[in-house]
């Protein structure tokens, strides 16, 4: 048994985790259970707490941040991150030397899709809202853009949230989590060329609103 497993509020290092991306096989076909978020089911093995603390805890912020940008909802992000982190805890053996951060980000992304399936239609951030947002990026007011240009963090976050999902996801994984193209491709299950074009699209949408990139090349 153990005491408190997590240090309180530890700042996550912004280190780029760009190791070999051999984590996909460990994940796909692995943890895809559909148990409800927060379920503390009995775990198969005894204490994995030290490894969890060493390997996973430094990435808790990154896990939450990805969940937050995917779900665009603070409460949902917490549920998703918790489910993903517990899943990581249960499946820590499947890590086998792969880089921790991309492995964990893939679990978070899966947990997000699980949540979206469960949550379908219940919140405004469901797929319907996704489509609406992708089709009508009209609410980007000039006042909002002015805030972005002044470096207002909240406005910048809102701007990232208005980027349609596949592009937003590539941007967050690459520019916030500093993962390699290869890692992003593995996590999102698309070829590297697709990652590159999604990233370019996302940066263009953001760059336009920052007043940096021209509308269309």
């Amino acid at each position, binding site marked *: 048994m*153990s005491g408190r497993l997590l240090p309180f509020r530890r700042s996550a290092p912004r280190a780029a985790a760009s190791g070999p991306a051999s984590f996909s096989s460990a994940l796909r076909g692995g943890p895809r259970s559909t148990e409800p978020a*927060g379920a*503390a089911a009995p775990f198969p093995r005894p204490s994995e707490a030290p490894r969890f603390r060493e390997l996973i805890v430094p990435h808790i912020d990154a896990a939450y941040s990805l969940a937050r940008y995917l779900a665009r909802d603070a409460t949902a992000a917490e549920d998703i991150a918790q489910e993903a982190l517990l899943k990581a805890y249960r499946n820590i053996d499947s890590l086998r030397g792969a880089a921790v951060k991309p492995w964990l980000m893939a679990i978070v992304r899966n947990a997000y899709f699980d949540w979206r399936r469960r949550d379908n239609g219940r919140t405004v951030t469901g797929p319907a809202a996704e489509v609406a947002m992708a089709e009508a990026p009209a609410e980007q007011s000039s006042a909002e853009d002015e805030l972005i240009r002044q470096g207002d963090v909240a406005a910048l*976050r809102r701007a990232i949230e208005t980027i349609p999902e596949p592009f937003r996801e590539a941007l967050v994984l690459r520019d916030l989590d500093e993962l390699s193209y290869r890692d992003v491709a593995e996590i999102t299950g698309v070829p590297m060329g697709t990652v590159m*074009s999604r990233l370019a699209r996302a940066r263009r949408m953001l760059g336009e609103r920052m007043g940096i990139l021209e509308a269309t090349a």
Partner: protein
Amino acid sequence: MSACPDKELLLHALADGELDAGNVLALEAHLATCPGCAAELAAIREVKAQLKAAPVAYAAPKSLYDRLDAALAEAEAPPPAPRRGMRFETWVLSGTGAAIAASIALMAILPSGASLQSELVDAQARSLDAQHLVDVQTSDRHTVKPWFNGKVDFAPPVVDLASQGYPLVGGRLDRIDGKRVAALVFHRGPHVINLFIWPGDAPSDPVMQQDKGYNLVRWGRGGLVFWAVSDCDPAALTGFQQDFAAATK
């Protein structure tokens, strides 16, 4: 003036350091003669720089840490093995039944004997791991005491004994024998004293013991059990016990 369409993705890859040497050379040669692509590259770098400069990544809220902590502590709790003559035949060990059995077992098992002392010493050693010493770090007892509200179902007395040579460092939650307990952390010179507190009955007269080179002193007061654990010398720990008991009279 805009970038060459066939170069756009390469410009992003260059800005990201994802191009191999051959492509870098070729693209740089092109950039030297193409103002459109050069401007595009500068713009891409500017977008990246602004994203990096602004703290747009979210930090996990404390509530997530708390929820994880609770879930993992649950997961780490010992299996509901029958101890102290408890009989489990009556439990229906299906999904939730097992969970209920586990939690009842945790409440029912009183910590006792040598294993408890070892556990306290382990908790002491664990707490010296720098990340783990305190959850709430402050010498202000008025901050530490309310911090335990809602985290444990009792109110641990919190006093600062700085003037007696035992400054309060902070508090944290710990888990002893499957129970959530309060731990107060004090310093004695270079030594750390962990004071574990949980509800229970113990004689008010202190009892001193040793385990694995650590000194432990136990006493009871007001329906709470206190265990102070430290590697400081026995006299200092005895002094701590007397000062703490006097301050909480």
